[in-house]
């Protein structure tokens, strides 16, 4: 019986569909409160499928195609609320607690008391390689969580500057982009 429960608990602790960071159950309640919810779950098979439909001619899509090659999954939850204070610090903490393992390191932490905008960006490192990105943006009326699982070249984030509006994020170890002369 004990072995049975152990198996059940271990199974529950394993990532769902390769998703490393599990979104808490409280997100379902947030979705009910939100006026707008974005729920994107793309595992490796769906990413591969999406990749086949991305055009090589369109710059945005070509960059996206390159970015997703080798990725295990992209998971996004974004909740937009009508009023402020609809989500709690606990909702955010329950996710951040999963990022305390040594493989995850926070590369950006933003706290803005004026605008009430907080953002944290984490990278998962395995040796020199970046194997995952996690982003949480907590704004007064919006909570957004992005989890990208799989190998990401830091320079890809820089290359995406101007694509989809992605800025050039300077990451330790990433070669700096040459300024056009």
């Amino acid at each position, binding site marked *: 019986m004990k072995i049975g429960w152990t198996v059940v608990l271990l199974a529950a602790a394993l990532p769902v569909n390769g998703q490393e960071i599990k979104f808490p159950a409280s997100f379902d309640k947030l979705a009910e409160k939100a006026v707008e919810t974005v729920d994107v779950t793309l595992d490796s098979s769906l990413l591969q499928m999406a990749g086949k439909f991305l055009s090589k001619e369109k710059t945005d899509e070509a960059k996206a195609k390159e970015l997703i090659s080798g990725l295990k999954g992209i998971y996004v939850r974004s909740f937009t609320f009508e009023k402020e204070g609809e989500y709690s610090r606990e909702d955010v903490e329950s996710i951040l607690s999963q990022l305390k393992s040594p493989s995850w390191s926070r590369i950006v932490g933003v706290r803005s008391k004026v*605008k009430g905008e907080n953002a944290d960006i984490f990278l998962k490192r395995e040796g020199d390689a970046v194997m995952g990105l996690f982003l949480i943006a907590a704004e007064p009326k919006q909570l957004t969580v992005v989890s990208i699982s799989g190998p990401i070249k830091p320079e890809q984030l820089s290359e995406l500057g101007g694509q989809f509006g992605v800025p050039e994020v300077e990451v330790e170890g990433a070669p700096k982009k040459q300024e056009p002369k």
Partner: protein
Amino acid sequence: MSRLEDELRQALRREEPPAGFAGRVAARAAQQEEREPWWAALVGALSRPPWRWATALAMCLLILAGVTYQRERQRRAEGERAKEQLLLALQITSNKLQMAQEHVLGLRR
């Protein structure tokens, strides 16, 4: 009376129809009215030995083509949906990275 008249009378004499003649005429008329429709005639023709296997093969190919077309349509729809979701995910990610970077660079307070 001349011999010619006798011959004519003999040739044109009234004769009774053979037994069952009226019934056979009525049955043939009814059969004409109940003629099978064209498609039934076609099915009948195609189910005759030389055409039977060709018809079965054609039907199988037609069904296979239909199933393949439907699957391809479904696969394309799923692929397009996955692509839209991916682009949306990247757009959201970029917006939030942009926000973080603006804070880091002091462009947004």
